[in-house]
């Protein structure tokens, strides 16, 4: 059997891992980096993924897509509130939103496929052979459409997705493999864009999920947004400038806020410095400032935790261990609130950024037959039902039912000679159909004409181990299989996916080497751009000789960049960076001096 890799397709970062010699390991890229930023950019040279895409984000905001996981399997109604905050254009379609890149429409699964393809190539470079099968993780609280969209992304990337695994469950496998968690464990997973809580019982190698809950629209991105709003108000107050309409500045602000947020997990205070085109912005931020902004968001994760405990029929005191997963759990405030809720300190002995990918690799190894003593029993996060008379939902499979599972339901006709029956399948916890998530409309066709009420059509709803619905229908009187045509409400049809798989060959970013060249060129452009700006802003404080050195290095890089020698482009990029180092130091010094002065001024104003 060929290799099966484990992939964590994250909102902010993605990783690929593999079990080698009984130990799961994250596969690094050529530069030794394990995290691949889940960012895809369309540049004149071609599609760029990862760090290179992130570095040119502000300059190319309209053609750079980030956090696409929040759009996976979503309709326009779901995401319209946050579209104003995204620098790229989302086409308002009810069913499957798509992103407009120049004259092309790209769906979220296609964007994710670019990230998956980069990880696939990374793994292939590592093993020196093709990789075609994968286990991909999703938030436990993802619904059917979001799971299906993830599976579609894998297919478009040329991967056979053998299993969709829930992220908190994957994390528990990574801990369990190393015998680092036993008994009843709560996995609190706060990532870049999603939140999950899962309660599991780990016993005799069986990982039995008892209950899960969460919010697929709550994560690190929301903390960044709160900070950006706060900073916008501060800039307005102190500089009298409204940056909200400037996409480039907004992206610089967002990236700056994100970095400052991360620093505040380790430091009590930090200085945010952004050299905008029009002015240099400095702001002193304390951990207290951040926590005041973050408190309501953290509080919003506690309700789902309580609900999961209730559904598992357990008290907080019956939980033996609380495990933290996801980058956002590095925030001391999160650790404090979670510790308080469960009455015990929460830990993250395995790297919270990597543990989900490691767990996906463990599940891949189980499927490959390499691990036989571990078994994962997961649940479906949302109740599955059908719409009945009066728009009421009749629940067929309640939430937190162990999967795979099935339910049978019987239908008949209401008119003489009727040969087809429509069904509306929903997911959610509300009484009325309209308040739940529409999954699909099923068309049962090919029923023999009979008097009304005579046919007895048995429909089997099966949720497989991926948490994805399959349906079969049979007319019991004739024993004939009725055909089911499934029209997914928020998903791509089979034909669309096939078309995208085909397109991916036609429009494929050339081979790995071509892609690496584009990335190197993009990186060179980013550095040139930064240096140009630095010279404009602070060229005056650099001696003429230093200036000349920088200009020369820049000219050289420009010439080299036009060619195709990747190593040389990289070398010249490093040289330009080195030539600029003294100038960067000087800029930094000036910035800090500025921040200190402005703070003194603030204090004087406060005291006056």
């Amino acid at each position, binding site marked *: 059997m060929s290799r099966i890799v484990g992939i964590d397709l994250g909102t902010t970062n993605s990783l690929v891992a593999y079990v080698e010699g009984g130990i799961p390991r994250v596969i690094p890229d050529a530069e030794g980096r394990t995290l691949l930023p889940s960012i895809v950019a369309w540049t004149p040279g071609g599609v760029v993924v990862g760090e290179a895409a992130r570095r040119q984000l502000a300059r190319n905001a309209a053609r750079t897509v980030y956090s696409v996981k929040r759009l996976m399997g979503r309709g326009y109604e779901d995401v319209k509130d946050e579209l104003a905050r995204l620098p790229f254009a989302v086409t308002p379609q009810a069913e499957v939103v798509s992103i407009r890149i120049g004259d092309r429409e790209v769906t979220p699964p296609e964007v994710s496929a670019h990230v998956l393809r980069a990880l696939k190539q990374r793994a292939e470079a590592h093993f020196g052979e093709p990789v075609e099968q994968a286990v991909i993780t999703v938030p436990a609280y993802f619904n059917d459409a979001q799971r299906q969209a993830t599976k579609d992304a894998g297919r478009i990337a040329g991967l056979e997705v053998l299993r969709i695994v829930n992220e908190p469950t994957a994390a528990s496998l990574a801990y369990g493999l190393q015998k680092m968690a036993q008994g009843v464990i709560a996995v609190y997973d706060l990532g870049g864009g999603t939140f999950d809580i899962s309660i599991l019982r780990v016993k005799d190698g069986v990982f039995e999920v008892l209950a899960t809950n969460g919010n697929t629209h709550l994560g690190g991105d929301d903390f960044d947004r709160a900070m950006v709003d706060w900073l916008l108000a501060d800039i307005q107050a102190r500089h009298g400038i409204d940056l909200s309409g400037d996409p480039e500045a907004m992206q610089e602000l967002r990236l700056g806020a994100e970095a400052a947020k991360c620093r505040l997990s380790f430091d009590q205070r930090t200085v945010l410095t952004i050299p905008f085109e029009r002015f240099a912005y400095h702001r002193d931020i304390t951990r207290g400032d951040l926590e005041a902004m973050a408190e309501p968001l953290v509080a919003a994760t506690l309700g789902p935790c309580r609900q999961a405990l209730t559904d598992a029929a357990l008290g907080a005191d019956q939980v033996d261990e609380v495990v933290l997963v996801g980058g956002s759990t590095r925030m001391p405030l999160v650790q404090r609130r979670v510790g308080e809720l469960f009455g015990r300190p929460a830990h993250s002995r395995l790297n919270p950024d990597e543990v989900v990918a490691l767990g996906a690799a463990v599940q891949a190894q189980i499927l490959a037959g390499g691990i036989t003593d571990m078994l994962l029993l997961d649940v479906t996060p949302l109740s599955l039902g059908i719409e009945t008379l009066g728009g009421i939902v009749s629940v067929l499979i309640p939430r937190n039912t162990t999967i*795979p599972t099935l339910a049978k339901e019987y239908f008949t006709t209401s008119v003489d000679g009727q040969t087809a029956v429509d069904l509306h399948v929903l997911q959610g*916890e509300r*009484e009325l159909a309209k308040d739940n998530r529409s999954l699909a409309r099923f068309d049962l066709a090919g029923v023999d004409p009979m008097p009304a009420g005579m046919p007895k059509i048995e429909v089997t709803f099966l949720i497989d181990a991926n948490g994805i619905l399959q349906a079969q229908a049979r007319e019991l009187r004739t024993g004939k299989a009725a055909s089911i045509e499934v029209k997914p409400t928020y998903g791509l049809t089979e034909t669309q996916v096939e078309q995208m798989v085909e397109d991916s060959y036609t429009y494929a970013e050339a081979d790995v080497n071509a892609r690496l060249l584009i990335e190197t060129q993009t990186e060179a452009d980013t550095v040139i751009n930064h240096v140009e700006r630095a010279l404009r802003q602070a060229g005056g404080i650099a001696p003429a000789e230093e200036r000349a050195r920088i200009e020369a290095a820049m000219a050289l890089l420009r010439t080299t960049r036009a060619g195709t020698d990747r190593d040389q482009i990289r070398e010249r990029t490093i040289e330009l960076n080195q030539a600029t180092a003294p100038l960067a130091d000087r800029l930094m010094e000036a910035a800090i001096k500025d921040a200190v002065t402005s703070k003194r001024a603030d204090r004087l104003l406060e005291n006056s």
Partner: protein
Amino acid sequence: MTDYFTVFGLPRKLVVDAPTLQRRFYELSREHHPDFHHGVEAARQAEALAASALVNRAYRALRDPLARVEYLIALEEGREVREGATDKPKAPRELLEEMLEVQEALAEAKAEGLDGDAGTRLREERARLEARYAGEADAIVGRAGDWDRLVDEGGDRKPLLEWFKQRLATRAYLRTVIDDLSDALGEREESHVSHRRH
């Protein structure tokens, strides 16, 4: 319909040792779970999927003593049981007096608002009903042994089956009234809505 008791090799009895059932569930899961049937032909995979789904449904029906009684009734009557059914149960006659009191308390709260005595009374009514609700469960589970004896001795099981049904109906009705009271008090959580099965 499939007898879930036979899935675990158990007789159709209500007293079940929980650790034994769990161990058996884990064993059967290891045997059938699709994770251990990858890379075999499609037909075998489909079989494993169906077998695994059956084991999971059987365990869910039997692991909780109360759900076990509900399942047993359905099995004895030969009808499909479905969790989470949303049909509103009818008021059992024995609850008539309590229900009149609850109606009165609700009317009072409507007229006077929730701040004063009316709110307090609603909460008291709810607490009383909740105690009764829990009591019903204990009473039902408490007679599991009686059922098993009837099975062993070959006695008439009909009266006890009817008694179980009546108690379950009363309990289901109490749940809806408790939820209605919580609604009136504005204290019900959204997510409980479609889970009136216990």
